[in-house]
């Protein structure tokens, strides 16, 4: 029994280190003075930390603007994805109707056509639709990518709230809309917020579509890829960029940690 416990704890420890050490290393690298990064022999732990590397990254042309672009696109994506997916989710959760199963299947099938497949034909179409190199265009593609997830998550949130509660409200004189707004929505808010945050991460992290669909109005990942491929940006820029990219994701994953299982658990079905 104790041997088993020992086994469990050592395995947990090794796996934790496997996940955590790279995160720690990029964080150190992001605050290591530039010349130390290129030194040989290379010290593992710098004698002093500096904000200089991060400052260099943030002052790099376009970084600040593309960060704002990324946030704007992510927020727009959340709005669009919810406006489109939430009503469908409600219908899927609450009504039995003809075509319900096919719709559900279609939404799941969209997971098979990810960014790579969508972006290139859409780039051609966007030029015609005057959406090429616009943040709206990127947000629309991110919306398309997040709709399967948002639909499945929000549907399961609504399914988790007993329909009898809404019916009770209706027998007490509410209209269907009132019953939704006063009973279901308040109870669904935490789950919806988690879905929203998840959508934010999805958009914030998306590289391929953003790279293909923009030229001057880059999101942050697109800008970094561009700087690395096109301009061969220096190492310290890359490390600082990597760190900067993961910070919001870490905070956000921490915020929704309670929902991680439900979020992914339900996307299974």
């Amino acid at each position, binding site marked *: 029994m104790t041997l088993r416990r020992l086994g469990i704890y050592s395995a947990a420890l090794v796996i934790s280190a496997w996940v955590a050490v790279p995160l720690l290393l990029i964080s150190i690298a992001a605050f290591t003075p530039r010349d130390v990064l290129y030194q040989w022999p290379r010290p593992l732990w710098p004698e002093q930390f500096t904000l200089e590397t991060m400052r260099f990254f943030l002052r790099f042309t376009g970084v600040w603007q593309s960060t704002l672009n990324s946030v704007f696109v992510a927020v727009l994506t959340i709005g669009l994805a919810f406006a489109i997916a939430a009503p469908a989710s409600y219908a899927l959760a609450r009504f039995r109707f003809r075509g319900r199963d096919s719709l559900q299947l279609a939404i799941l099938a969209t997971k098979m056509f990810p960014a790579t497949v969508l972006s290139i034909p859409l780039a051609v179409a966007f030029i015609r639709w005057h959406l090429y190199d616009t943040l709206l265009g990127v947000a629309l593609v991110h919306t398309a990518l997040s709709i399967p997830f948002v639909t499945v998550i929000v549907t399961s949130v609504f399914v988790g709230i*007993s329909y*009898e*509660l809404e*019916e*009770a*409200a*209706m*027998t*007490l*004189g*509410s*209209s269907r809309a*009132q019953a939704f707004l006063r*009973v279901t929505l*308040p*109870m669904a808010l935490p789950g919806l917020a988690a879905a929203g945050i998840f959508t934010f991460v999805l958009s914030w992290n998306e590289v391929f579509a953003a790279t293909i669909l923009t030229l001057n109005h880059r999101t942050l990942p697109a800008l970094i890829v561009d700087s690395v491929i096109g301009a061969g940006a220096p190492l310290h820029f890359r490390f600082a960029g990597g760190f900067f990219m993961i910070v919001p994701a870490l905070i956000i994953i921490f915020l929704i940690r309670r929902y991680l299982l439900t979020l992914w658990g339900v996307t299974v079905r």
Partner: protein
Amino acid sequence: MAEIELRSLRKTYGKVVAINDLSVHIPDGEFLVLLGPSGCGKTTTLRALAGLETLDRGRILIGGRDVTLLAPGKRGIAMVFQSYAVFPHMRVFDNIVFGLRMRGVPPGDQRTRAHEVADLLQIRNLLDRYPAQLSGGQRQRVAVARAIVMRPDVLLMDEPLSNLDALLRLHMRAELKRLHRELRATTVYVTHDQVEALSLGDRIAVMKEGEIIQCATPSVIYDTPANRFVGSFIGSPPMNFLSGTVAGADGSLRVEVAGTVLALPPRAHPAGGTPAQVTIGIRPEHIAVEFSAVPAAVPAQVSVLEPIGSHQLLTAQVGADIVKVTVPPEFAAEPGRAVWLRFDPARVRLMDPATGQAIAVS
């Protein structure tokens, strides 16, 4: 206060018929129980009455007003759900006044009426709590309070006691009976528990496969079930059924069971006359057990004797049939022993073995 009229209701889900041409009239103030096994359409009927299901056909009248197409909130009904459906994000008080708020009742009145029903249901001290802090029984009281605070013409209850443990169920059953006596709202109550139905209902409508089989007072349902199904569904243990042969009718009706001829009160002749083969229905408490052969007693053999507290349950074999008899606690008989069963002739119910329909006493 209002009477209810259900006229030729029909509801299907695809090919499944949930309610098939169901009509019933419920007088003002009556407590009607819809009783039946699961899937018999009782809940669908209740939900149609509440306006939560749209019907394929038929009309619903409450207090003479056609409400068939009205929204649930406009029918003058209130409903207690099986899961209670107490809003978890609202305090007990807000739950209770929810309907009053929807109706735009002034806040002052809301408060007085909420306190009134809270007192009636003894939940005054719980008004500031959230449902998560309540026990199942307390939540149930909140659900009832939320319904009756509306002073509904019609109170609908969908298996309200099924989620409570046995003791609490007994207690709440008496409470519901008291509430109905005090409020006199026309009540429709759905249950699959025949004891609940017998104890609460002014009348019981026994349902099967979307139709009402028999609708009558509890004593009529118990004593003179309309068919074999009703007899076997009501009573614990249910009615016994034995096959018999009509031996003759001269003044009394003579039926032979397992070689013994019973003299029974005469029956009305249904169209086509009394069949030669009949099914005899007799309740376990209407059978006396003898240890020696007496006239008109059916020979049987003891299989099992089970003590169940206030009395014992004897299972005996009569020919190919099994008969259950309630016997006093001091009764003793080892398995295999021969006994003779004396049926109370006035309590014997005869049924047509082909249709299961009872043959009425003339």
